């Protein structure tokens, strides 16, 4: 290779790595594109991800650019999709499967829990399981039943699965790249309601480890992830008007939990509110609340609050706003912990 070529290449790369403004959908598409380009063992498949480019267009154009062997549609069967991914991984590929909507993870659940999550253990490490499962997740888009579920618990409780969800385009890019690079199965939950929100993606600044401190504050910690982060930032903004300094922590990884980041923040603020869309009981907030209550036992000034979906089947569009934590409910949660007197 001549020097000129190298220089050219480097300049292209540098150019390519300029920060760009993208929607989260665009960032995810770019991450898949870069993964496919940089590692020819990466495969992308699922229902309608090929020709159509996915119902949310996250895989738009990938089949055209990388061919129908690497980006392809499967028949309509979720267990088949995950089982296929497991076998592909065993054959040395790096599969990125899509389950079209959160609610349709369940037909594949056996393959995730009893198979994908256990291959490493079952084979005593003879096989890696670099399977990424992209799942458009959470509510907020007025979709039909089972198109707006929040499945954190269903994944967090499974030993052998990693679980992650981005809240910004930048994080979406880097977390998806990290998930695909992972030698372990990762459930990548994409917050549907944030697909079209834009932000700057800087590919030269990878950032995919642990939680992200979104906003520092000293009176109370708001713990959130995925679809709820933007709302929690709004709440923090509003609270600031009343002189309340809310620290907002975006967990990003639900497995493994960044316990140190959580504890550090709550040791500092001594109060915590957890916000999630999933139902309350045995929800993701249960583990986090239990953890804080234990690790910050001495410093905690009020019981940890959980502002969450209710213990009801996630309702239809018209009632969605009654179910998903809204600003009022989060505010009430803050108030409860701030006003609590032991």
């Amino acid at each position: 290779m001549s020097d000129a070529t190298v220089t050219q290449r480097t300049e292209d790369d540098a150019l390519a790595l300029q920060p760009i403004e993208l929607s989260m959908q665009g960032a995810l598409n770019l991450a898949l594109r870069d993964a496919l380009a940089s590692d020819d063992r990466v495969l992308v498949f699922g229902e309608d991800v090929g020709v159509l480019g996915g119902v949310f267009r996250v895989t738009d154009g990938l089949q055209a650019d990388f061919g129908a062997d690497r980006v392809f549609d499967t028949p309509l069967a979720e267990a088949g999709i995950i089982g296929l991914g497991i076998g592909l991984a065993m054959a040395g590929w790096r599969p990125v499967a899509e389950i079209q909507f959160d609610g349709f993870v369940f037909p594949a659940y056996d393959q995730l829990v009893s198979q994908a999550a256990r291959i490493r253990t079952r084979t005593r490490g003879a096989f890696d399981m670099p399977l990424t499962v992209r799942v458009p997740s959470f509510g907020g888009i007025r979709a039909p039943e089972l198109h707006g579920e929040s499945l954190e618990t269903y994944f967090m409780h499974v030993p052998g699965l990693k679980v992650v969800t981005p809240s910004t385009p930048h994080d979406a890019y880097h977390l998806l790249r990290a998930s695909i690079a992972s030698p372990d199965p990762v459930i990548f939950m994409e917050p549907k309601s944030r697909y079209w929100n834009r932000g700057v993606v800087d590919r030269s600044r990878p950032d995919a480890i642990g939680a992200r401190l979104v906003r520092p504050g000293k009176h109370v910690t708001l713990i959130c992830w995925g679809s709820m982060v933007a709302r929690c930032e709004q709440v923090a903004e509003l609270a600031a008007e009343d002189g309340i300094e809310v620290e907002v922590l975006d967990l990003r990884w639900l497995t493994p939990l960044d316990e140190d980041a959580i504890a550090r923040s709550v040791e500092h603020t001594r109060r915590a509110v957890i916000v999630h869309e999933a139902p309350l009981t045995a929800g993701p907030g249960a583990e986090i609340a239990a953890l804080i209550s234990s690790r910050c036992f001495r410093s905690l000034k009020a019981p940890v609050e959980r502002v969450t979906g209710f213990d009801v089947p996630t309702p239809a569009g018209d009632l969605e706003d009654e179910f998903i934590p809204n600003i009022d409910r989060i505010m009430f949660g803050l108030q409860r912990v701030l006003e609590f007197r032991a």
Partner: protein
Amino acid sequence: MTRLGLRNCKALERGASVTDDALEGDTLVAPLNEALLKRAYELMYFTRLLDSALVTWQRQGLIPAYPPMIGQEAAQVGSALALDRDRDFVFPTYRELGVAVAWGVDLSGYLANHSGHWHGGRWNAAESRFAPIQAVVGGGVTHAVGWALGRRLDGASAVAIAYLGDGASSEGDVHEAMNFAAVLRAPVVFFVQNNRWSLSVPLERQVAGGSVAARAAGYGIPGVVVDGDDLLAVYQATSDAAAHARSTGGPIIVEAMTYRRGPHATSDDTGRYRTIDDELSAGEDPLDRLLATLHEAGIADDAWLAEVAQNAEVRVEELRLSTAGTEPIHGAEMFDLVFAESTPQLQRQQAHWREESDHV
């Protein structure tokens, strides 16, 4: 394999090989008489009008989304008319407007699902003998088997009809349902609307072998492929199938070859995955075909047709008004229907909810 009314069905040439060895005990039902033919046309006409209206209403923002069924009117109306509303039971998918119309389901309740008022719809599923709209592809097919077995155990000669698409046939649940129905003897008509698309995926990349009815032989049950755009053929095939299920207590597959002429749903852009040529392969419109039959038989004069159109328009307008004006369901209902009786947890959550959010 029994093939009925195959006037215009390319897909059939691909050579499914279905045996009808097991097809026994059929009682041929009286062929459609004049009144029934006209009734079918009325229902199909109204269905078409309402289906198109729903697409418009979605564009106008009246409803959030809708999966059109244009082109499947003969398959849906023909099959529904062949069953008995007083003893049979329908397990629909999400694209069964024509079945709901022909079955006489309360349509403003039906539309509640597409309006985002209530998942599953807002009619009385038990009284209407029409299960809620099923969001999980293939998810309700095993229920049909259970229901049918349950009624057989009761000594009732009742039949369940399970609607499913070509795409649904790939789901494991559908296989389990068919095998269960055959082994446990459950009188189910598995009614497949093979509309040659599962969202963006064409039949040949979905159904290995090309035909769902061709799988019947593997279960030792009868399978029938029918021209799904021929109302008479669908009615006849489904009547025979129901009679078979009723008299033998066992299942049967009917595969109606049709075409999804519209998008998958209002949000879908078919231009991304199919060509005009694809769409032209749909063949002649099922309504036109039935109309031609009516004309041939000399049983449809202009006055009657005008009346049909007029009645349909009135009803569609009523439904527009009822849809626009439907009282939203009160949020409290979320909490009331989780269990027969509430729990302390639900009561507490409901109290919080009442205090902390604004409600209409």
